[in-house]
């Protein structure tokens, strides 16, 4: 009887033989498998770390430093590395790059996972200014106030925009820093105001408009200094309305109003701030203390901002409409994020667009390629305002306001090479590296000096728009980032979107929102 034949009964001798052979075979296969694993870990092992930490590293102040960066930097790793050395970084420091996702939320989740696990690399993180503070609060970053040279700290104070720096400092809620290690300086969450990140890249939205169309409609952008002198929302609505009526384009003023994080952090934050309103009082309480700061969304400036937005979309027929404001935005803004709002403008089919600086590059490029338009037909102006800072109840609120976007460089407290990591960050702050970032990588950095055309020359397509971007940077308003901001952000976006879609009245919605925000504040 063949050993391979199927057993018929429990007493079948053939089956007994099969069982024994099967068990033995499995045992042998297992042993071979294990041996195979061991062999696999032998000669071939260790040839690649897979994390790009690069080489053996060196001693002293050098050694390997791994930076988490997006693909447009990792694709130009050699150039970026050379620019760092050109900026004075010791060649003993071996810089390598780890490519991260392009999606901010994914990057945050990845960093949180790494840091919670105590991973030693990457040594330098590129962190969104919209979620750096929670990492500071959780003691997961190196205190750079204790690490950077006095010269570097002075440079930041003297030459950098304040808003990005604010979003990289320890907030009021971070006092204590239970895990701080004063010997190594690796503890986070130190005293309020300590710096944990250095701006790497900044983004401030502006109004981008068709200068050819407004000129044809009889306006004089240059004569009225639109590039640097913010106009009121009322005047802006009149300009766009008149220009739209005079031009053969489908859309007037495009922006992003759907129910998403961009509405709460940025677009509505700007509308509200330019009306003198705020989510949690003035700038002093933007970042906490959670549970102790006032919730101020159910106040008149916020209601007025909502009424104005409704008027811009629905016109004077809206029961909440404000007098003197024109209907200039399509109903579609209620469903638009960045992409859908941008394309009509770059296609030459809209008068104006509220967008991040990348829109300037996109529009200038598209205009040039179109043949009908040129980059000179692109104008920029700061975000309009409704009340001045003097008229606002809250300090630092009112007048033009641009939401803060951008990224910081921070240092991993578990890094085995913190000194070298800090050296790398200091190198990125040097003028030559900032110029490399600006002209080669296409990044706007937090250094105000690079917003002066006299310092950087006529870099296309930014040159004509740098002054506007500087005004936007000086008036940037960060989102109120705390550990509970993600919860609050979604509540704000839903309520605001419902109001501007005429589904709820401003007072009712803001009253309900105030209750929810307060509840979230008290939940920690």
């Amino acid at each position: 009887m063949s050993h391979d034949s199927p057993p018929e009964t429990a007493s079948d001798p053939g089956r007994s033989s099969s069982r024994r052979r099967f068990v033995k075979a499995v045992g042998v296969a297992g042993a071979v498998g294990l041996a195979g694993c061991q062999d696999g870990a032998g000669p071939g092992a260790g040839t690649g770390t897979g994390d790009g930490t690069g080489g053996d590293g060196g001693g002293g102040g050098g050694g390997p430093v791994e930076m988490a960066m997006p693909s447009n930097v990792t694709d130009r790793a050699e150039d970026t590395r050379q620019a760092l050395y050109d900026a004075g970084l010791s060649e003993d420091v071996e810089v390598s790059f780890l490519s991260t996702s392009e999606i901010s939320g994914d990057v945050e989740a990845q960093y949180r996972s790494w840091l919670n696990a105590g991973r030693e690399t990457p040594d330098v993180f590129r962190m969104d200014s919209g979620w750096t503070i929670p990492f500071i609060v959780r003691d997961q970053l190196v205190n750079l106030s204790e690490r950077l040279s006095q010269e570097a700290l002075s440079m930041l104070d003297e030459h950098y925009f304040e808003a990005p720096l604010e979003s990289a400092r320890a907030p009021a809620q971070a006092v204590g820093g239970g895990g701080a290690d004063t010997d190594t300086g690796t503890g986070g969450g130190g005293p309020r105001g300590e710096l944990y990140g250095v701006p790497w890249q900044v983004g401030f939205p502006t109004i981008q408009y068709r200068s050819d169309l407004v000129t044809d409609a009889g306006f004089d952008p240059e004569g009225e200094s639109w590039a640097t002198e913010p106009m009121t929302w009322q005047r802006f609505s009149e300009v766009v309305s008149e220009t739209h009526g005079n031009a053969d384009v489908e859309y007037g003023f495009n922006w992003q109003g759907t129910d998403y994080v961009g509405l709460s952090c940025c677009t509505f934050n700007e509308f509200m701030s330019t009306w003198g309103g705020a989510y949690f009082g003035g700038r002093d309480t933007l970042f906490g203390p959670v549970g102790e700061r006032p919730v101020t969304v159910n106040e008149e400036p916020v209601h007025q901002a909502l009424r104005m937005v409704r008027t811009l979309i629905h016109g004077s027929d809206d029961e909440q409409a404000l007098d003197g404001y024109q209907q200039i935005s399509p109903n579609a803004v209620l469903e638009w994020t960045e992409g859908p709002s941008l394309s009509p403008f770059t296609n030459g089919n809209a008068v104006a667009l509220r967008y991040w600086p990348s829109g300037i590059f996109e529009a200038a490029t598209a205009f040039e390629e179109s043949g009908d338009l040129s980059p000179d037909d692109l104008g920029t102006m700061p975000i309009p305002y409704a009340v001045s800072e003097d008229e606002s109840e809250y300090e630092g609120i009112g007048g033009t306001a641009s939401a803060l976007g951008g990224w910081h460089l921070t240092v991993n407290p578990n890094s085995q090479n913190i000194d070298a990591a800090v050296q790398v960050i200091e190198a990125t702050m040097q003028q030559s590296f900032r110029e490399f970032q600006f002209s080669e990588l296409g990044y706007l950095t937090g250094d105000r000096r690079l917003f002066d055309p006299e310092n950087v020359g006529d870099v296309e397509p930014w040159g004509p728009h740098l002054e506007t971007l500087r005004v936007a940077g000086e008036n940037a308003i960060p989102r109120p980032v705390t550990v509970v901001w993600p919860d609050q952000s979604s509540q704000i976006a839903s309520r605001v979107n419902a109001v501007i879609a005429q589904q709820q009245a401003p007072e009712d919605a803001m009253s309900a929102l105030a209750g929810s925000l307060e509840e979230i504040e008290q939940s920690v």
Partner: protein
Amino acid sequence: MATSDEHGRGRVRSAAVAPANWTERLSEQGFAYVLLVPTLLLVSTMALWPLVSTFEMSLRADALFSAAYVGEFVGFENYVELLTGERNAILGSPFLDFGQPFQSALTVTLIYVAIAVTLETAIGFGQALVLDQSFRGRRWVRVAILIPWAVPIAIQGLIFWLFFQPGIGVGTDVMQSLGVFSANPLINTTDTLIIVIVADVWKTSAFMALLILAGLQSVDRSLYEVARVAGASKVQQFRYITFPLVLPALLVALLFRTIQSMRVYGIIETTGGCSTLPSLTCLVVSTFRSGRYATSAAVAFITAGIVALVALVYIVKFADLEVGT
């Protein structure tokens, strides 16, 4: 005389043969269990341990201010607060609120499952009946029916998102002219629910058709001959032959599809978004993204419990059928 090497080999041989001999004394059932042990160990490691670990996380507080994933032990507090609505502000959308059925995650999920699975079953059954017939070009019809099933969720979502995106797709204008949709369907809960159901039915009816077709093709054709000879109409043939014989396959298909639908997330996120149409999985993802891992684990566990409960209904029904046969 045996050398020490031979003694050593003998001991090794005895040690290797011992377990093999031990298996000889096992009953058929016992041997089957022995063979299952590696699989059980694997499943325990891959599925049971994460399940237990998630449950343990759900009994702890959220830890927003520390590097730890979760905080101190709080027992069933997360579950109680979720079910009583005390966490609604954190969740963004209520977990369960009968006063707002289209804003509440549980009711939205159940409505979606009921309508989508019913439509998919009906359409899938129809498609299976067509595919079960012999006709020229059947191969191409099968391909046409199966194509949507092969489309990835991200692409499926993008298709419907673009279709209803103002300034890009014509879907909104068409539906609005019929008086069905609002001006902005992708920020309207009811409109988005309809879009998501239609998108899901478009894609997944083929899955139901395939499983039902397998059942149909196992039906003994001679039964229909007998029925025809006995004078049974088409409806009677379907009622007394096709349906009862396909029912076991149909129940399996329904079980799979219902479990899948209860976890709906991708198609929502890629069309109207979770804030417009919150499902149970949306709540798991949003709390997880907020760093509220304990709350997220509790929502996940409740979701798993509800899915298990729904699955149990099918399993009991299936067992009844088997007993009946």
